[in-house]
């Protein structure tokens, strides 16, 4: 089996073979194949620009892989400000010894996800580092998108309804379950997917989101706490309205985690005017039947996220802190 060697990052023939023989072949698009020092793009109007780096172990998990996340992550960050993702870059940091077939699978996954998201991978970079310097592969993607309807966090205000586009914790639970040391068996799949089509459906229906954010690392809890801080208001959430699959709940109970703190890669939080609530939920449910209205922004100025359970008791939903460590007993 062919493996990545340090020579593949050396700037010589091997690197040329890797880029032209594999990467360009898979990503294949007109802009990339022009092979200029920079991609020359055709864009107009207001743009959104975002970047993110992706490190995930294992690189392949149920429902996705590092390549799929690398495209979804940046494309979704663009979608969350109301931008249609157009072009992304791909910078690879590869550990010496990685199987070329594994790299090929990751790149193919990036390509098919990019096609699904409607973006082209138009420029990139490849570095190879010595064994032990990184964990198989790290990927950075940056992306630009055309603003269709500008969505800013500063629009958050009292009375706004908080909606969730699906069930929570799937991606985090899948990655945990995939780790060798846990040896958990599960049929769970990551929620990893591009989100712009859902945003587009909302915009086409005349809904103007006040704010949107994909609930990636830190999960729902991190987003709601950021929002509560940003708008200096309490946010009250009903626990019953948040969908958590039995498998995610099971993994959380075994390890002592909160499903609201686990990462999602295709679930987002949305704030809308009360008048848009029902219509927006209806549209979200066309894409995921677990979508729901989960709470509202209160007219108070303490910046807490308060969660109420089915029997009426309330508590804070604190933002996650530190490493995600399992309970001891």
């Amino acid at each position: 089996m062919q493996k990545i060697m340090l020579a593949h990052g050396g700037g010589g023939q091997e690197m040329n073979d890797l880029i032209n023989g594999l990467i360009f072949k898979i990503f294949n698009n007109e802009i990339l194949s022009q092979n200029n020092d920079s991609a020359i793009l055709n864009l107009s109007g207001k743009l959104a620009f975002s970047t993110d780096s992706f490190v995930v172990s294992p690189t392949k998990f149920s429902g996705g892989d590092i390549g799929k996340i690398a495209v979804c992550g940046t494309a979704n960050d663009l979608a969350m400000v109301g931008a249609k993702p157009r072009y992304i870059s791909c910078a690879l940091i590869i550990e010496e010894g990685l199987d070329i077939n594994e790299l090929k699978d990751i790149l193919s996954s990036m390509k098919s996800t990019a096609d699904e998201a409607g973006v082209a991978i138009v420029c990139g970079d490849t570095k190879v580092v010595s064994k032990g310097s990184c964990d198989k592969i790290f990927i950075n993607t940056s992306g630009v998108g055309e603003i269709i309807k500008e969505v800013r966090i500063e629009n958050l205000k009292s009375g706004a309804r908080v909606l969730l586009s699906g069930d929570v914790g799937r991606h985090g639970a899948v990655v945990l379950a995939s780790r060798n040391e846990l040896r958990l068996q599960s049929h769970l799949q990551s929620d990893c997917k591009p989100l712009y089509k859902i945003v587009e459906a909302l915009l086409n229906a005349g809904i103007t989101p006040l704010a949107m954010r994909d609930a990636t690392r830190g999960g729902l809890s991190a987003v709601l706490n950021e929002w509560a801080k940003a708008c200096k208001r309490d946010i009250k959430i009903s626990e019953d309205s948040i969908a958590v699959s039995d498998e995610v709940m099971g993994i959380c109970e075994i390890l002592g985690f909160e499903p609201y703190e686990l990462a999602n890669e295709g679930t987002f939080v949305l704030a809308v005017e009360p008048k848009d609530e029902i219509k927006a939920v209806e549209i979200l449910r066309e894409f995921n039947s677990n979508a729901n209205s989960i709470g509202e922004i209160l007219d108070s100025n303490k910046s807490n996220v308060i969660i109420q359970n089915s029997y009426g008791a309330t508590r804070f939903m604190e933002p996650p802190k530190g490493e995600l460590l399992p309970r001891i007993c």
Partner: protein
Amino acid sequence: MDLINSFRDKDKILALSKIIKQRSKKPLNIMEICGGHTHSIMKFGLPQLVGEHINFIHGPGCPVCIMPRSRIDEAIAIASIDGVIFCTLADMLRVPGSKGSLAELRAGGADIRALYSPLDTITIAKENLDKKVVFFAIGFETTTPMSAVVVEQAINLNLQNLFIHLNHVTVPAPVRAIMSDKDVKIDAFLGPSHVSVITGSKIYEELANEFKTPIAVSGFEPLDLMDSILNLVNQHQNGTYKVYNEYARVVTKDGNQKAKELINRYFEPCDFEWRGLGVIKDSGLRLRDEFDYLDAKKYFNIEVGESKESKACICGEILRGKAKPYDCKVFGKVCNPQNPIGSCMVSGEGACAAYYKYSKRG
């Protein structure tokens, strides 16, 4: 049976809430021995469901909280030795010792690994025969059998490179120590069910009789706790002091005989210094003499100087049931989960961490 939702049933919880409020007519101080119970109580908002007479007091049942700084210092001294792979369970990484935490030591390059299962140490030892692998064993009766299995496998596999730093403790001893303090006013106890899965419910009978205090061996789900609280309220009203086994779906009177035999085969009682409680006779476990060649402290000949606790932190008072986390001046301010001053703010099972996370900020 749905093992989660069945025990979170709204109608049953509200029905129990109503009965508890009706029957609870005089102040009742309930100590939840285990930090897991503290977290469940706060997470599910149970103080809001049981009425004004019931006061929950956190007890000394979190393996991280009760660990004296001297043992963390020993762990750090061992983990600092070249060629050592130091294995620990999750939260212990963040507990501050006199010179920082294991997490800080790891960031400085030490090979420190957070385990999901104690048995992972066996795999690590087999894969790293040129290194010395040390398992920092902690916890109450719940986790002790797993450490005994690690010892047994190390012996059976004749692993020459695996050592144990044993910090296991038992539940009844600190309960007796707390109840012997005349300043402590506790009317009833919630006993951790996972401990009794191993020991049986009978470990509490002597305590209940000696201190004329009812004890409910309780599960961790809200319905488990509400049912246990109702039993304690009833006993308090009636003046009885029995051991109530709420977790009868798993807990027997005598417990898991096989696990107990395994523990006794390799470990024996010893005095243990508890954070906030001082040295309690026969409250900890050590390796039996014939296995002390596996003792990491002896093998590496570790001696640490005097280890002082932070003066600002009142973890000791909290663990004795004399203070609530809110009473601590540094709670939620200087001391928070990102910068824990005391171990009660570190652990996922610690009292301060539970109060901070679910209920009140500083």
